[in-house]
């Protein structure tokens, strides 16, 4: 495949954004015919900018794009589609209330002579295409009835239907279960046989090694290396990506569980739309122990966590902290008792983005001595706030030009470090961490994992929720699987096989 002319060549692509960031620095990339080419890099390395240039969403400052050896200019997505480039975004661009067929033909509807939609022909063609590619998708079904994995296949179908020969997938596995990931991989291999060339963007090393024919690593806007999977390994790729040696294996060490610190009994709770999402959860976490909850997103984990920290009122059940019933206490009262919480969505919950760093570092402790004092704790004390912010920024390696910048200017990893630094205080009893490393790069993940383990070793009870099965498996001393509002399985760390847990996550049943 590499002997033939590449179907796509990007030569010397450079893009500098206003403000001076050099997002792409003369990048060369080529895609062979029927090749799966992985683009690997940390967040902000320039992968997405490069692909946006290819798709016509961003105009490059320099460089040339050639398709089948002929130079082309791509001025917008319409140009890109016309030249056979298809893109599957990380967040799906589907209309939930329309059928699969309607979504696929949207914008290129088939009409009969008098301008009436001909959905029957559309459905037939889509079914033929799906059969050829080995998809099991019913064109008549509404998209909001599909799982995320199936929706992704609809996105791919949409691109292929529009004649894509070059398919770009932006972090396609981020939202999938392990089973779904395996399925999408077989879909991609089928597409390759069918004549499609694929660019696969990811920062997951194992996946890249499994699926790609070639891996190109980008760091700070530059190509730093290109490898065949057979000639490399995860450690080398991680080092290329981050620029230094990174420990990928979490060294969890031995846990020394003490007494039960957090206990949840018969908990039931509604979500904001008044659906019962937590349907009788029982769990307990001992001090000095990490209990991980594995589950596909949307199975009640968020609501469970919100109940534990006091953001949501359960309608049945009890939550106890070291034997004391805290079910009815406020968020503030629970914090005072030693519960800390790293929320899943740092920008929506964990930070006030326009605030400068010091205010964000004390966001959940703003009313405590010494950050407030005088007039009965009414007046804020700048000096203690600033010195605490300085100390935490240093201890947790938050990188910013100064403390006096808005949290919105920090990278995702540094934003998360601000939240983690604030919540990982020393007098904790229970630490609730929800998706602690979502969207972070390898270096930040390593750092945050070490901090979680350090807290456990200091005797804190840690409740971990993550959609990343590997994260749950790597960090947890005990693993619970949550499915449709219930805990459907418990594994000791040693017995938790990836496949078994994954199957339970996907089906709620432990089939063999």
């Amino acid at each position, binding site marked *: 495949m590499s002997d033939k002319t590449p179907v796509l060549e990007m030569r010397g692509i450079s893009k500098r954004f206003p403000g001076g960031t050099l997002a792409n620095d003369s990048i060369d990339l080529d895609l062979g015919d029927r090749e799966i080419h992985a683009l690997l890099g940390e967040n*902000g390395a320039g992968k997405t900018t490069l692909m946006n240039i290819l798709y016509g969403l961003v105009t490059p400052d320099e460089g040339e794009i050639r398709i089948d050896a002929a130079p082309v200019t791509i001025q917008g997505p319409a140009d890109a589609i016309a030249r056979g480039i298809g893109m599957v975004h990380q967040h799906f661009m589907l209309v939930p209330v329309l059928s699969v067929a309607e979504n696929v033909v949207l914008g290129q509807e088939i009409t009969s002579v008098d301008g009436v939609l001909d959905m029957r022909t559309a459905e037939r063609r889509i079914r033929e295409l799906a059969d050829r590619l080995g998809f099991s998708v019913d064109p008549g079904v509404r998209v909001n009835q599909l799982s995320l994995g199936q929706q992704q296949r609809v996105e791919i179908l949409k691109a292929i239907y529009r004649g894509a020969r070059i398919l770009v997938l932006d972090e396609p596995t981020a939202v999938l279960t392990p089973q779904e990931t395996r399925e999408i991989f077989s879909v991609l291999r089928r597409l390759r046989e069918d004549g499609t060339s694929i660019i696969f963007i990811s920062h997951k090393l194992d996946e890249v090694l499994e699926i790609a024919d070639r891996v190109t690593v980008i760091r700070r806007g530059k190509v730093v290396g290109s490898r065949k999977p057979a000639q490399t390994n995860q450690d080398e790729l991680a080092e290329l990506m981050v620029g230094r040696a990174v420990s990928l294996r979490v060294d969890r060490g031995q846990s020394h569980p003490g007494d039960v610190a957090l206990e949840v009994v018969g908990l039931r709770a509604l979500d904001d739309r008044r659906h019962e999402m937590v349907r009788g959860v029982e769990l307990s976490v001992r001090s000095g122990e990490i209990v991980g909850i594995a589950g596909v997103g949307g199975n009640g984990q968020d609501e469970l966590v919100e109940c534990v920290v006091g*953001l949501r009122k359960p309608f049945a059940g009890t939550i106890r902290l070291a034997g004391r019933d805290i079910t009815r206490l*406020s*968020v*503030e009262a629970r*914090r005072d008792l030693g519960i800390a*919480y790293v*929320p899943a969505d740092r*920008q*929506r*919950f*964990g*930070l*006030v*983005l*326009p*605030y400068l760093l010091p*205010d964000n570092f004390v*966001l*959940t402790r*703003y*009313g405590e001595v010494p950050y*407030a004092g005088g007039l009965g*704790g*009414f*007046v*804020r004390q700048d000096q203690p706030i600033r010195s605490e912010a300085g100390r935490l920024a240093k201890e947790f390696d938050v990188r910013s030009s100064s403390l006096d910048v*808005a949290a*919105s*200017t*920090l*990278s*995702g990893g540094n934003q998360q470090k601000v939240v983690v630094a604030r919540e990982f205080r020393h007098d904790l009893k229970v630490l609730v961490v929800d998706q602690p490393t979502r969207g972070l790069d390898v270096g930040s993940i390593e750092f945050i994992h070490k901090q979680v383990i350090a807290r456990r070793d200091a005797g804190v009870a840690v409740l971990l929720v993550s959609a990343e099965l590997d994260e749950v498996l790597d960090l947890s001393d005990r693993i619970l699987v949550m499915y449709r509002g219930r805990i459907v399985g418990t594994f000791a760390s040693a017995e938790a096989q990836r496949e078994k847990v994954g199957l339970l996550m996907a089906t709620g049943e432990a089939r063999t």
Partner: protein
Amino acid sequence: MRRRLGRLGPTWAKASIPVYSIVLAFAVAAVVVIISSAFTATGFDPLLPLAAYLRLFAGAFGSGNGIANTLVAAAPLMFGGLAVGIGLKAGLFNIGVAGQFLVGAFTAAVIGAALATAPTIVGMPLAMLAGGLAGAVYGFIPGYLKARTGAHEVVTTIMLNNAAALLLTWAVNDLVRAPGFSFPRTADIGQSALPILAGRNLHLGIVFAIAAVLVIRWILVRTTLGFEIRTVGANPNAARYAGMRPIFITALTMTISGLLAGLAGAIQMLGVIGFYAPGITASVGFDSIAVALLGRSDPIGILFAALLFGAFRAGAPLMQIETSVPIEVIDIIQALVILFLAADLIVRKVFRVRAPKVEITEMATVTGSWGAGTPPPGTVS
């Protein structure tokens, strides 16, 4: 020199758009004046705006009397601007300043009249306090409704503005009408009037207004309550997560906002009007919104914005007398200022100001109030 610039930098970054908006508003209004001059007796006069603006300035600042008029007009606008501004800080758009102003003015008039013969040191503070508390109660109603039921404060306060005007008309007619006048009005406030500090009419209200600016600024910047108000406004989810009670803060902020609006009414009543009669102008209510936006919800910014709008009111009569440019030009300028603040893209294009990194939340609150929902917060890496 560099150090001073370094200190001024952030202030200028915040003030640049309002200042440029004012400049642009004057320029566009000048075009209107030039065009309309062609249809008047004086004939086409391209220099007319210059003359008019000079007279406007002279009227506002050219004499002791002018300055006094400016300060007298600015004082209620400071209170009203603070009322709107503190609401915007908490993500609330209090359009009800007009109603709260009337309630405050009415209550101050009634209590002031009841204490008309008591010493000023007793009657005036009690009348002020009563006006402020009445405004607070009237602000608490939409605050409570918002906190408990989610009823949008823009809708409820608009309704309550009408309710206030009509209820007070009834009250003046049937409950507290003073005898001996040919029209319904309250009795004289007598000794309860705000003392005159200087000149003919410069009353104590401006001192109260400046004090209020400093107090509100202190609360917002230095206290935990201010931190809670700002956090609820900037990110209510994070506020809840941090253990704050957005419901309580919402109701409390609307109450404080109403208190300030009520005080605006009280000082206008006790310093300028002297009695309540149906149909007294509540234009302060709507000008307050403009003042708060021009001041970027910052108390010091509101102080300057109120002075500017006060100067417009004080200087306009001289402009009209000496150049025949009608007072209504002031309304055009004020409206244009707000237009340019809202459409700041125009200002940025004209003056080449770079967009801020973080969304300006008070404008987001206002534009989001019309059912569109608050746009997502500023750009994120």
